[in-house]
């Protein structure tokens, strides 16, 4: 790989790459993201390789593994360019047909196209699919076009041009001014203004200074950071380079949680390529700016997403947070000024520098600028990653993009903000999604998880889930968090087991306020949010558990019973065969019964029943 020593070199390199790409008449992209890997996209790609070799088309057709286009539920995803034909749920056996029909003859294959169930029509291009139509994909748009393991693909899309602009045409304070003017707020959860943080770090005394990219993404149900780092790692590096230049940092770290092996691998590959191209190292693009980046791995501790705990973890210590009287921008890694931003925040930087703060701040609402990526998951029809302008309503996201309920059950809430957030009831779905509105509703933006819940989700169980989660993840340093969450968990366990009494809820609320007021770090301070918001909006569900000893959503095992509807049962015997405790009895072709005293409530019978005859009450 050649060394890029000036803006001119970068421009020439880009021209050469574009010229080389033109020799390909057709480009086939196969999503190589973790989601599609669960649907065995590797085998689909191999099948394409084999088929193209067999047809001797290797020179005319470019086959690419790309990052995640977001529509994970429909994977493996394959797109054929330039026709822009989007195939979903592609299997190995479909590959020869795609090559012979679509690649060679330009014909569309009907059964692989997305079908809009409401309009009863097939949609050939991804951008016309309702899931994508209402999105504004500024950060994710390149994910499905570039191979994340090839720096050339990123450069061809105008990559590293923002770096050239910042380094060669702007002073560090001009860069900070631009980021401040854009109104960008941190995407990791707290929503602190990014430009201000940079300025504080730049003004802090001490050297060397560090920048850190936080890809610990511990919030369960959120995966936008994984997807960005996995699918477009160079955009993160470019953001970090620009930030480091503005702040005056010489070393950066990308901290990736251990559960994201592909993101870590792709980030490391990108760093190695950027070093070889001279985009990391000394005198970058012929300027006097020196900067290098290393990766660091997490070890499965949620608390390490907190800035001071993450810093301790990079230093090779136990990931315990410290009090924040002194901010990390003044004293971070090894006591030196350290600027830590989340993956999505870094990904916004090249865009702001390239297109200007005025353009960026024209998107979104008055106080929340730009777009936000959400992971729309749970009980909704179209699940995946969606990028939308701030200020769009929850209803638009869940019903227009998400397509509404998954299996006919009414949607009752959406959980945002991860374990620090809360559940917002369906009656508030007209709420615009921005930092302030979500906080007012008792939840928060958080890192962007949006878990949709329907009638089959028990809100007491969800509250218990988050408290259990946080109890496990509490580092144990301060007492309110360590002991308080344990006791809150015990009360919630009792309620879900039908052992709640008249005092349970009052005690739960009292404890929640103590934990929130007296904990040391953000984990404890926000930990009671899921419980408080559930109590605020779904109190009758708690009361049903306590007073009637019933779980209205039929989730809490001690309070439910499985039975078989006599009318619907076809007597196929599938449930009887699968039942691990032999609790199902019945003759072939006759209605079956479940013996309550033997039933372990594992639900296998319900999983296998084709007639939908197994009921839970």
């Amino acid at each position, binding site marked *: 790989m050649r060394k890029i020593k000036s803006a001119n070199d970068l421009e020439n390199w880009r021209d050469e790459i574009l010229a080389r790409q033109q020799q390909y008449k057709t480009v086939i992209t196969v999503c190589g993201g973790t989601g599609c890997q669960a649907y065995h996209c590797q085998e689909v790609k191999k099948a394409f390789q084999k088929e193209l070799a067999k047809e001797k088309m290797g020179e005319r057709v470019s086959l690419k593994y790309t990052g995640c286009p977001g529509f994970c539920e429909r994977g493996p995803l394959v797109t054929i360019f330039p026709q822009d034909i989007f195939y979903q749920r592609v299997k190995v056996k479909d590959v020869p047909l795609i090559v012979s029909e679509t690649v060679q003859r330009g014909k569309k294959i009907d059964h692989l196209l997305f079908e809009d169930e409401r309009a009863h029509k097939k949609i050939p291009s991804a951008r016309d699919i309702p899931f994508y139509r209402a999105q504004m994909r500024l950060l994710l748009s390149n994910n499905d076009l570039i191979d994340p393991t090839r720096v050339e693909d990123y450069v061809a899309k105008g990559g590293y041009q923002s770096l050239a602009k910042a380094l060669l045409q702007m002073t560090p304070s001009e860069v900070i001014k631009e980021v401040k003017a854009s109104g960008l707020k941190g995407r990791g959860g707290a929503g602190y203004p990014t430009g201000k943080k940079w300025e504080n770090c730049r003004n802090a005394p001490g050297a060397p200074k560090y920048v850190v990219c936080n890809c610990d993404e511990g919030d369960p149900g959120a995966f936008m950071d994984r997807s960005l780092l996995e699918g477009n790692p160079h955009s993160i590096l470019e953001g970090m380079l620009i930030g480091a230049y503005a702040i005056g940092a010489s070393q950066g770290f990308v901290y990736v949680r251990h559960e994201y092996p592909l993101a870590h691998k792709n980030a490391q590959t990108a760093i190695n390529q950027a070093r070889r191209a001279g985009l990391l190292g000394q005198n970058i693009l012929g300027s006097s700016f020196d900067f290098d980046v290393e990766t660091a791995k997490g*070890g499965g501790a949620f608390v390490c997403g907190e800035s001071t705990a993450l810093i301790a973890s990079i230093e090779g210590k136990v990931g315990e947070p410290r009090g924040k009287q002194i901010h990390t921008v003044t004293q971070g890694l090894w006591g030196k000024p350290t600027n830590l931003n989340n993956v999505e925040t870094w990904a916004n930087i090249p865009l702001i520098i390239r297109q200007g703060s005025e353009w960026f701040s024209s998107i979104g609402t008055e106080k929340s600028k730009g777009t936000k990526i959400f992971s729309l998951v749970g*009980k909704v029809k179209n699940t995946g990653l969606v990028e939308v302008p701030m200020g769009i309503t929850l209803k638009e996201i869940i019903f227009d993009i998400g397509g509404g309920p998954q299996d006919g059950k009414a949607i009752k809430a959406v959980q945002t903000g991860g374990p620090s957030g809360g559940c917002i009831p369906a009656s508030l779905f007209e709420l615009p999604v921005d930092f302030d509105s979500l906080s007012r509703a008792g939840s928060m933006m958080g890192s962007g998880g949006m878990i949709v819940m329907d009638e089959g989700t028990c809100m007491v169980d*969800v509250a218990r889930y988050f408290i259990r989660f946080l109890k496990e993840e509490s580092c144990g340093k301060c007492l309110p968090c360590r002991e308080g969450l344990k006791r809150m968990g015990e009360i919630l366990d009792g309620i879900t087991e039908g052992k709640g009494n008249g005092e349970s809820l009052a005690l739960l609320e009292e404890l929640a306020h103590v934990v929130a007021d007296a904990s040391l770090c953000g984990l404890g301070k926000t930990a009671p949010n899921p419980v408080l918001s559930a109590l605020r909006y779904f109190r009758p569900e708690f009361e049903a558990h306590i007073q009637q000893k019933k779980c209205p959503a039929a989730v809490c095992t001690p309070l439910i019973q499985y039975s078989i509807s006599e009318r619907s049962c076809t007597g196929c015997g599938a449930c009887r065969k699968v039942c691990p405790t032999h609790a199902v009895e019945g003759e072939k072709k006759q209605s079956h019964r479940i013996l309550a005293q033997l039933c372990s409530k594992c639900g296998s019978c319900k999983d296998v029943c084709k007639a939908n005859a197994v009921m839970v009450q």
Partner: protein
Amino acid sequence: MNFQTVEGIIGKHQGKKTALISILHDIQDRYNYLPDGALRKVAQRLQMDLPNLYGVATFYKSFSLTPKGKHSITLCCGTACHVRGGPKLLREVSKVLNIEPGQTTPDKTFSLHAVNCLGVCAIGPVMMVDGKYYGEMNWVKARRLLEKLNNHRGGRKV
């Protein structure tokens, strides 16, 4: 046990203390757990106190101080998987393997892990078997998978 490889792993990370977590991951990948001898070598080379190193090794959930099983079964306990039936799946897998999350079967065939989130939320519940992801799992599919793994080595029926 010969810990030559540990030297290699530390060398690969240039003996940096910042790479400690990565070093421990690499050791665990190689030996399937963190052997005491390997930790002693790391402490010596990185000039760390052994108790401190043990503190790190036990703080982070990914590390195990006892040998893990041949097959690693990881169940995602993220919110998205939770609302789609993850807990039921975990309960049943745990029951049939007769071990709790974090434990290994006595015959060292299976280790069971429950993790906070694998980040594959759109297709939950998600199960990972030996590094391979499986989406939209239910107990019936999971049992078939476990039986297949066990049959490969002619073992007992799960």
